[in-house]
């Protein structure tokens, strides 16, 4: 099918885009990589009077380390993030997760801002933003604000962004020494959206106890969720004394994942437990290795 007619503007400055979004509000839509929006238009699941194509706004692209924060422009392509040295060094989890997104042709167009704004409950980037404690910076003609990933993701395909707001950048905090990360997902084929996926970020103290842990699952609810009870249960505990299998089972027992043609909710809950266990195991191993100076040198 073909998209319904719309007017098209391709501003080169953020302010021009904001003025258009302000003028048309609900009738306007931002066009980023188009890898989610164009199918919706083509299938006529959505229609808008005005598309605001932000692909020509140079200021929305780029990756920069500012103090202890990696600032990634909203229009930075997934393929760029996948290959970027700064991302690998300062947010390795983001680089690793990118390989799970679709296929290389999709990543050549898809953007980090689009992925997060789209808020697909099975998408990788919203979940990684939540895991790393990222914020997004957004703007409208009225000004700018920062929103924590946990506050941004409201429900399936829904964020707390206003229609006239543009996502400018994603601010990813750099996790310090002795931090380790893991991402894993179950999908039917390479490149498919996950049936269930998850990510973990942990920091260990000198005695190998858990100083900080974020554990996130996606595909099990209407948005990516943090397993707060699990995080609390392992906080301060020596890694070697944790019964990870039992903890993961407990943490996932109350989940009520959706059923669809791909998998039943019961299946999703069942695999969520070993997935969670594996995420923590991998993140702990990597955190220890990240703290070992001989390993650092060998890398």
């Amino acid at each position, binding site marked *: *099918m*073909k*998209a*319904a*007619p*719309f*007017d*098209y503007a*391709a501003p080169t400055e953020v302010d021009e885009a904001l003025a258009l979004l302000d003028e048309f509000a609900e009738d306007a839509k931002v*066009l980023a990589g*188009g*890898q989610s929006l*164009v*199918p919706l*238009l*083509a*299938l006529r699941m959505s229609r808008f009077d005005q*598309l605001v*194509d932000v*692909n020509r706004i140079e200021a929305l692209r780029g990756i920069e380390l500012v103090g202890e924060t990696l600032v990634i422009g909203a229009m930075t392509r997934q*393929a760029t993030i996948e290959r970027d040295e700064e991302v690998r060094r300062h947010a390795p989890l983001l680089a690793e997760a990118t390989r799970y997104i*679709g*296929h*290389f*042709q*999709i990543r*050549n*167009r898809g953007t980090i801002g689009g992925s997060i704004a789209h808020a697909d409950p099975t998408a990788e980037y919203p979940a990684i933003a939540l895991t790393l404690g990222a914020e997004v910076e957004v703007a409208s003609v009225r000004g700018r604000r920062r929103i924590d990933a946990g506050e941004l993701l409201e429900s399936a395909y829904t964020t707390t962004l206003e229609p006239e707001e543009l996502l400018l950048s994603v601010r990813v905090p750099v996790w310090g020494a002795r931090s380790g990360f893991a991402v894993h997902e179950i999908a039917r*084929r*390479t*490149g498919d959206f996950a049936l269930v996926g998850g990510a973990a970020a942990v920091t260990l103290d000198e005695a190998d106890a858990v100083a900080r842990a974020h554990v996130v699952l996606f595909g099990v609810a209407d948005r990516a969720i943090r397993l707060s009870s699990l995080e609390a249960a392992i906080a301060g505990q020596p890694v070697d004394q944790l019964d990870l299998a039992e903890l993961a089972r407990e943490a996932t027992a109350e989940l009520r994942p959706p059923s669809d043609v791909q998998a039943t909710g019961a299946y999703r809950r069942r695999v969520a437990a070993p997935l969670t266990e594996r995420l923590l195991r991998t993140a702990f191993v990597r955190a220890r290795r990240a703290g070992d100076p001989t390993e650092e040198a060998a890398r």
Partner: protein
Amino acid sequence: MSKQLISVRINDELFEGEVEPRKTLADFIREDCTLTGTHLACEHGVCGACTILLDGEAVRSCLMFAVQADGASLTTLEGLAPEGGPMTPVQQGFMEHHGLQCGFCTPGFVISAHAFLRDHPDPTEEEIREGLSGNLCRCTGYQGIVRAVQRAAEITREDVTA
């Protein structure tokens, strides 16, 4: 919804046209430029039949509007090997190893394989399968396609060392 004037370089030739903003790049290539080597099947990003190179990178042309390509440089299937000249290693591989049956998916696979081999000159079978996971074929069962790409990598290496 007024039409917009665009100019796009395709296979080193300049094409100009007046298009409605909602016209996809794929439709512009096929209808306005009459380059029908680019195929369309699903028209919503799933199958990869419409894959082209946009400024050298493989993308789905059904997921872009033609207006977005104003000023860009594209390569379609027709632009890979000059007419009457030798085939590319990918095309040669597809011919030798039955990389196609009905041929509908083939333009997308060939373009994707070109981009993939440029970045992975010596791929394993698993890497090939992963690299081509964004293209669907309803006929071949993929074995012939995987062998075609292995063969293309081999020919390219021979060309380089020869």
